[in-house]
């Protein structure tokens, strides 16, 4: 994604996700991100294409880490550029909601009580479902 030298860009919205030190009340030692590489590639391209179809954005960038992470490590970066701020805000949030529910990543936490897979959240499905409705978000 280019920003320098792009005089048509008026807005840059970015999201950084970071590993929290507590989840469900337990201290997190490490977080392991597993994924399905070929499907990940396809899913990320598809999510970015959908965002570009729905909003008037100039460019977008998704970086998602995999492997073993520690609290305060960055997990994901989503950045979107557009002429006007609404497009970049909505497209960035849309990409995150779709990443959470449509891209093949799985998190496993190591706490002092042992290992556990992170459960999918209903709130993430609800966040994604908002984009289907004619809800004024687009």
């Amino acid at each position: 994604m280019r920003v320098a030298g792009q005089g048509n860009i008026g807005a840059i919205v970015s999201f950084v996700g970071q590993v929290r030190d507590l989840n469900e009340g337990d201290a997190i030692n490490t977080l392991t991100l597993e994924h399905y590489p070929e499907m990940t590639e396809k899913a990320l391209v598809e999510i970015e294409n959908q965002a570009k179809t729905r909003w008037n954005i100039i460019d977008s960038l998704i970086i998602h880490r995999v492997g073993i992470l520690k609290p305060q490590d960055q997990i994901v970066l989503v950045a979107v550029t557009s002429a006007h701020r609404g497009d970049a805000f909505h497209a960035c949030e849309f990409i995150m909601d779709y990443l959470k529910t449509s891209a093949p990543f799985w998190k496993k936490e190591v706490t002092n009580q042992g290992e556990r897979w992170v459960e999918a959240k209903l709130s993430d499905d609800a966040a994604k479902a908002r984009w289907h409705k004619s809800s004024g978000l687009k």
Partner: protein
Amino acid sequence: MNIKILYFARIKEAVNYSTEDINLPADVSTVITLKNHLSQRGENWANLFNGKQVVRAAINHTLVDDLAKIQAGDEVAFFPPVTGG
């Protein structure tokens, strides 16, 4: 027909396989019939694939539902609901 199956995350650990090449019986041609077929491999398989747990499927890297058709040479993947981002 011959297909390839991949297992991820919790599913991979439960079946203790990450990938396998398999020759399917003639009556197994959809995701749901493949799930039923795998259920017969033993208790840990049955627990995963008897429909009580949410197991998502992808064919050739695209998310599909239980009624999706499987064709020779397909790469079928099974995994729990995703938790990235």
